[in-house]
């Protein structure tokens, strides 16, 4: 059977493309921007995530750490060695307390020792020394590096000698910061950093001495799955050890990055779908204009499949052109954004522009274009050749209602199948490309649902408008009446445009709401006054004085956080004595040292995961526990824990678990494992911990001031680590804002081009109106009313769904949703303005055209 050859089809396709370059420019732009946003946002955010995660790892100085409570046995050592033979690096860190003296004095000072292997430690981050030198030079042989407070207290200088146990050591440098200071133990006393050999030479490490040992691990690859795998493996080998990965050490960073990744995945998908919607709209308009050609070809004996070839080729060409341009733009974005951000943030993410990403971009561009042009392409089958003879083809008044119904079902059947294929395709793209499978699935499902509701809503709104107009026809001004009537004029793609604009508004607004909520949350965790210096072992008699001293310090900013700490033991959990408890990766020994604190209400940086937090004045003993601790102890809301607080005899505190909490690890409260209400503990003996924010480079001054008045108080400087954290979070926030902004911009351009695309078919209408004597301003007024109404309806529907989406997604991400009244109002007006302005811009040429030019072409 003869058929329209592919060559002829291609010839017609390419000539049509050339003859309507303007219109197809918008189509290509839509695809390009969608693909660009997808490749750009995806590539950049994953590169950024990798970079940030490396920084986040520096807070643990490793990918994983295993805190040991006893020496590993021979079998465990062998198993650990087996792990390291797979490319995993491992280094031990031993921390303990000891007494140091100046070499020529006898004043002893409690110090916190940290023994490391300087050739391996730290796996991530750096130890800042003064004078600056490599760690291997500062530590080893006779050399040690010490905290500045040690020199202050012992009145020594760099270069002096100290006596530590049996060893005499030479202070080679000051330790300004250690990357893992925040995750190590907060032992009292100034720091001495040394090698394991040096520690052994002091002979302080005797059996039974309270040394804490950690193993740090570094993986050859940096993906979270391998980390999780190794963690499980280590928990198996070392059942008594407390294994933590870098994600747990930085709940604030991990949460922020996870949320940002989720939201950015969504953002890039949104851009892509917007692009696709733009394409569908443009293709629909294009095919409407080509109805005559299609009808002619059909009257000459062309089958629908022949005609489909032409438009399939066109679609492929457009998708390809858009894809290529989009990938180029996306790569450009990836190359450009880091330059911008590098200036702003001072870090440059490692970039890999992988061939696979380019192929994925192209394939996605093509696939989405094909998917979304399917409904208009399928409509080709319904173009009847009789169109050439008679315009109104509203179909047969088929006497048999069943016949008519069947025809309708047949026609919409194909569209339903198309809808299903689109949904499946988008799900495939979303789940393949999204970094989070959940986000991909939720996105695809949500998109389908929302689109359906939008189409229904648009149809209903248009029907209502029509009824309203029928009633008020006489009383409206002609311009208004024409403008409104245009919306439901036969052939006007109002319902489709309403759905498209509504969907666009929904997605753009949702991106804004989501990124806004995330950024707001990030701002909370990047407040410049979060504590970065911790005070340990402040006695009740000193606390008021310390408070007063801190208040007077010019280097101290923000609130001073004070935490009462009561050392306690756990006697029973839910009636089971401590000795019989089955614990998960938690040595029973730890039950002997539970640190309790009391608070009147939920402290900042804390979130209740389960249960309810008490309010001021609660009389019954209640306890709030961190999620992780609750898992280890196998307790939930309603469980009871019996603590033994110090006293003679032990003072038992039987508290009910009323809240499982999550802390961002940024405040002093996260240092206590068990939070109780005031009345349960207030009368017991306690010491205080404090947290203040001091200027990073002036912590030394604060230490000296405190030491002068309160020599027994230990000052732990985590300013460096906190600064790293703050930077990372700020970077996440900036990246989210940047990429969301980019996506919003892309979305607006696409929306504008979708609207502009519909204007091309209005030439004839403009010409007729002009011929009948309508002035340009009158025509512009009619169009303005039509488009403003369209914008307002679409904007309203879109915003309703945007708020709903934001609410659902934010709940998933554990973030708070707030209705932003002003933003919503401005968005609504903005959408109306955008539709009108775009309408005008696109009609500008049309309005200027001489009627005869068009009529001659007709």
């Amino acid at each position: 059977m003869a058929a329209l050859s592919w060559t002829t089809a291609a010839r017609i396709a390419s000539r049509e493309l050339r003859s309507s370059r303007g219109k197809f420019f918008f189509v290509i732009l839509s695809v390009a921007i969608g693909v660009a946003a997808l490749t750009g946002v995806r590539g950049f955010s994953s590169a950024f995530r990798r970079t940030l995660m490396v920084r986040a790892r520096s807070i643990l100085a490793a990918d994983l750490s295993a805190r040991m409570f006893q020496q590993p046995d021979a079998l465990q050592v062998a198993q650990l060695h087996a792990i390291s033979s797979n490319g995993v690096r491992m280094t031990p860190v031993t921390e303990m307390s000891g007494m140091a003296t100046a070499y020529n004095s006898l004043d002893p000072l409690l110090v916190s020792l940290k023994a490391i292997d300087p050739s391996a430690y730290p796996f991530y981050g750096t130890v800042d020394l003064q004078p600056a030198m490599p760690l291997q030079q500062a530590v080893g042989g006779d050399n040690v590096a010490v905290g500045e407070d040690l020199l202050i207290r012992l009145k020594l200088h760099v270069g002096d000698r100290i006596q530590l146990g049996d060893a005499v050591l030479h202070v080679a440098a000051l330790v300004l910061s250690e990357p893992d200071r925040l995750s190590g133990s907060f032992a009292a006393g100034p720091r001495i950093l040394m090698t394991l050999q040096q520690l052994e030479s002091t002979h302080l490490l005797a059996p039974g001495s309270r040394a804490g040992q950690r193993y740090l691990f570094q993986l050859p690859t940096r993906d979270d799955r391998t980390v999780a795998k190794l963690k499980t493996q280590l928990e198996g080998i070392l059942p008594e050890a407390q294994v933590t990965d870098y994600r747990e050490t930085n709940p604030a960073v991990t949460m922020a990055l996870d949320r940002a990744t989720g939201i950015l995945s969504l953002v890039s998908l949104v851009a892509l779908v917007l692009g696709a919607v733009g394409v569908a709209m443009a293709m629909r308009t294009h095919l409407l204009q080509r109805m005559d050609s299609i009808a002619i070809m059909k009257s000459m004996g062309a089958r629908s499949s022949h005609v489909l070839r032409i438009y399939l080729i066109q679609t492929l060409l457009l998708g390809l052109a858009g894809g290529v341009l989009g990938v180029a733009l996306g790569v450009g974005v990836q190359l450009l954004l880091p330059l911008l951000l590098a200036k702003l943030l001072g870090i440059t993410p490692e970039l890999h522009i992988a061939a696979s990403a380019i192929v994925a971009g192209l394939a996605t561009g093509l696939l989405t274009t094909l998917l979304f042009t399917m409904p208009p392409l399928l409509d080709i089958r319904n173009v009847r050749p009789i169109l050439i003879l008679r315009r109104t083809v509203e179909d047969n008044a088929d006497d048999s209602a069943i016949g008519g119904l069947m025809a309708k079902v047949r026609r919409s059947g194909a569209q339903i199948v198309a809808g299903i294929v689109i949904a499946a395709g988008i799900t495939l793209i979303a789940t393949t490309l999204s970094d989070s499978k959940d986000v991909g699935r939720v996105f695809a499902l949500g998109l389908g649902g929302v689109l359906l509701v939008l189409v229904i809503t648009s149809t209903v709104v248009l029907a209502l408008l029509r009824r309203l107009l029928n009633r008020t026809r006489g009383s409206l001004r002609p311009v208004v009446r024409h403008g409104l009537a245009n919306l439901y004029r036969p052939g006007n793609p109002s319902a489709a445009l309403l759905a498209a604009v509504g969907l666009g508004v929904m997605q753009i607004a949702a991106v804004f709401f989501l990124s806004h909520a995330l950024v707001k949350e990030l701002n909370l965790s990047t407040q410049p006054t979060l504590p970065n210096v911790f005070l340990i072992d402040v006695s009740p008699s000193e606390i008021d004085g310390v408070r007063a001293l801190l208040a007077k310090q010019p280097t101290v900013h923000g609130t001073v956080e004070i935490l009462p700490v009561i050392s306690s033991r756990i006697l029973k959990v839910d009636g089971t004595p401590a000795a019989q408890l089955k614990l998960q990766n938690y040595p029973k020994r730890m039950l002997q040292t539970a640190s309790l604190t009391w608070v009147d209400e939920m402290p900042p940086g804390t979130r209740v995961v389960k249960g309810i937090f008490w309010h001021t004045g609660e009389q019954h003993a209640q306890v709030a526990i961190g999620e992780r601790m609750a898992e280890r102890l196998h307790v939930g809301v309603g469980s009871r824990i019996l603590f033994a607080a110090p006293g003679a005899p032990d003072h038992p505190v039987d508290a009910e678990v009323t809240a499982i909490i999550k802390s961002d690890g940024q405040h002093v409260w996260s240092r206590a494992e068990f939070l109780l209400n005031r009345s349960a503990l207030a009368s017991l003996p306690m010491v205080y911990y404090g947290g203040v924010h001091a200027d990073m480079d002036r912590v030394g001054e604060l230490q000296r001031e405190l030491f002068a008045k309160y020599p027994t108080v230990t000052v732990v400087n985590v300013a460096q680590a906190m600064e790293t954290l703050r930077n990372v979070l700020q970077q996440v926030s900036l990246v989210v804002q940047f990429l969301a902004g980019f996506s919003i911009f892309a979305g607006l351009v696409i929306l504008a081009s979708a609207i502009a695309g519909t204007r091309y078919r209005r030439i004839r209408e403009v010409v007729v109106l002009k011929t009948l004597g309508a002035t340009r301003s009158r025509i512009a007024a009619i169009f303005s009313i039509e488009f403003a109404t369209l914008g307002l309806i679409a904007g309203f529907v879109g915003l309703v769904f945007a708020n709903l989406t934001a609410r659902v997604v934010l709940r998933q991400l554990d973030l708070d949703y707030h209705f932003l009244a002003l933003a919503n109002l401005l968005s609504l007006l903005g959408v109306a303005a955008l539709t009108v302005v775009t309408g005008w811009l696109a009609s500008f040429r049309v309005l200027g055209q001489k009627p005869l030019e068009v009529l001659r072409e007709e």
Partner: protein
Amino acid sequence: MSANPEHTLTPAEPSIRVSDLTKSIRNGTRTVQILRGISFDVAAGEFVAIVGSSGSGKSTLLGLLAGLDTPTTGSVTLDGTAISYLPEDRLAEVRGRLIGFVFQSYQLIPTLTALENVLLPHELNAPAKEQAAGLQRAKELLAAVGLAERGDHYPVQLSGGEQQRVALARAFILRPPIVLADEPTGNLDSKNGEQVMQLLLDLNRREGTTLVLVTHDPAVAAHAGRILTVRDGEVVHDERRVVHDERRQTDTTLPELV
């Protein structure tokens, strides 16, 4: 379906048979009865003009004859094939094989050149191996309508009369047994209209096709051997006439066609 679509052609059978044809369309909420039970036969080689005022249903009738639309009831049989209720793609094939169509507003594909427009039905319907012969015939037909030099021009570069001549050439490319024309001179001035009409008649005579032409112009209808008058969806008059057209006998200006 009332007839066997693959019914074989016998010499005695008419070229076109219309039986009790009705057509109604829905326009908004109203149903409009356009054709109300029309029946007639057209013999092979006959030239029939369908006349009637605007809105009488003549163009709808022509559309149904061409299988461009489906009747509400009744049937159309072309060269022994009942076409009315065939599926769209089968109809397309029948149209390609049996019918040449000339429209009032030319209906050329704007993105194809004059030559490509003429060739299009051939491309759509003839076997691939005959494409070269098709091209040859398209060129000859273009020459026959006086546009040999304009083959590379796009429709927009041609005048109305020239576009309609291209459309004429296109209608004849497949040597269809039936040519249907809808107001072929309706958009042209009288001089161009007359020229197109003469070309149509000449081509028709040489190709020996059955010609059915819709017009409201008595001068055009006067060329036909039979005039069907349609009013309010019914044939109210069926007149057979003797035509004296000297040109039909004497014209030798057109080259013979392959």
